[in-house]
């Protein structure tokens, strides 16, 4: 339980911070898309008996870069590339799963998450990931804000926008894979989107949006895992529903504030 809370808190913070940028870049569905595409990586890992999360990570990073390239070079909108790779990856995963026998139980842990079974290495990985995301945002905060708000002006002012786009894409892929362990492929986009959306709903400036998103994520993890432990309900469902509940409270708060 202790390991689950530590890993959950760090992964949720990384998701909340990245999520604010992703929503404003109109890439809310990238978490959903990358997780589905990474399903093929999990299936490859299980089929070949190599580390499934490692295979999923490599595939997710490659696909996040491909989505970016497709948008830039083929003139596809960001979410079209996400839809294409998400479907293709998941389709490949289904075929690989049907070809192999005997890993159905393992597969379920990747589909629905298994945070209570998280090991010490994964706890450390989640801490490193959160530190990487937070420091990336801290050191590039103004540039990231600029490219998110006005990409063209940011580029005209000499900012290396493509480099930053790539950095966001790769960190998102890594975060999604770590999030898969917490809530699973099906629900990982909720970690990226719901806390960030609640921050954006009520904040009047960008920094506050990030802070509110982090608070939502922390409360969701701690209360969600506690409820899961005491009520014997799935941790992933409890965590995401808690985040959704906070989002609902924020909506009511906003309505009455206005």
């Amino acid at each position: 339980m202790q390991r689950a809370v530590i890993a959950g808190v760090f992964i949720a913070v990384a998701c909340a911070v990245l999520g604010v940028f992703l929503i404003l870049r109109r890439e809310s569905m990238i978490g959903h898309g990358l997780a589905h595409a990474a399903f093929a990586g999990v299936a490859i890992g299980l089929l070949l008996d190599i580390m499934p999360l490692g295979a999923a990570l490599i595939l997710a990073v490659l696909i996040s870069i491909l989505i970016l390239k497709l948008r830039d070079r083929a003139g596809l909108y960001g979410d079209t590339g996400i839809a294409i790779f998400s479907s293709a990856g998941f389709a490949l995963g289904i075929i690989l799963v049907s070809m192999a026998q005997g890993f159905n139980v393992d597969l379920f842990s990747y589909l629905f998450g298994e945070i209570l079974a998280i090991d010490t290495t994964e706890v450390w990985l989640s801490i490193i990931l959160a530190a990487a995301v937070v420091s990336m945002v801290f050191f590039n905060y103004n540039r990231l804000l600029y490219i998110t708000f006005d990409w063209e002006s940011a580029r005209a002012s000499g900012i290396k926008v493509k480099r930053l786009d790539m950095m966001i894409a790769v960190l998102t892929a890594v975060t999604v894979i770590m999030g898969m362990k917490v809530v699973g492929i099906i629900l990982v986009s909720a970690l990226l989107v719901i806390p960030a959306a609640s921050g954006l709903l009520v904040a009047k400036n960008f920094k506050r949006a990030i802070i509110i998103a982090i608070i939502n994520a922390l409360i969701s993890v701690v209360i969600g895992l506690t409820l899961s432990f005491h009520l014997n309900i799935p941790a992933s469902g409890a965590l995401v529903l808690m985040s959704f509940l906070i989002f609902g409270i924020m909506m009511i708060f906003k309505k009455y504030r206005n």
Partner: protein
Amino acid sequence: MASHAAEPNTLVSISDVSYFYGNNHVLDQVSLNIRKGDFLAVIGPNGSGKTTLIKIMLGLLNPGQGEVKLFGKLLRDFTDWGKIGYVPQKATHFDPFFPISVKEVVSLGLISNRNIAFISKSEEEQAVKKALCRVEMNHLIHKRIGSLSSGQQQRVFIARAIVSDPDILILDEPTTGVDASMHDRFFDMLNVLHKENNLTIVLITHEIGIINKHISQVACLNQKLIYHGKHSDFCNSEAFKKMISGGHHLISHHH
């Protein structure tokens, strides 16, 4: 017409630039020098290549042919972007719910100079306030940008463009979405920036009616550069007659 050889006080030198969008020839061997102190209006009908020319000048598009020099340096070697302030055509077309204050928007303009993480908070605040004062928007510093009118937003974007104390300010269709009754005030503000701050201004527009007494130079573009010279001579030029006969009517002209 434009001279190819750059004069000593030339800030921007565009030489024989051509550009294609697919098979569409957008710019055909355009040469144009922008000198220090110019208040230049680049005019031409929609689709004449004005925005493309500016994007090439800013390194946002690569020219198929030709060469651009900024402050005497080839575009690929130019790094001092703080010397150029730019307000794009669609600056005010952002998501109105974006949680960003006027202060945050203007601060973004400091990034081109250096990493604003290394500028002290008081320095940053002082620069932002000064830029907002110059466009008469200081009273809105803590407002969310999405809550302002289009005209106010445009002024805030100009503040962002001038906060790094640039030598040249480029505005792409700046009066789009600004109430026609506010055009005079808007140009008066630009004129103050031009005169008191010694700022070179390049203004792109398809409305020749907004060209007024403050503008010193006109460059008329329609795939090729068909006129570049004094504003006062432009009204008697063939280029002007062609534009008028092409359905571009002069709405107001202040001499």
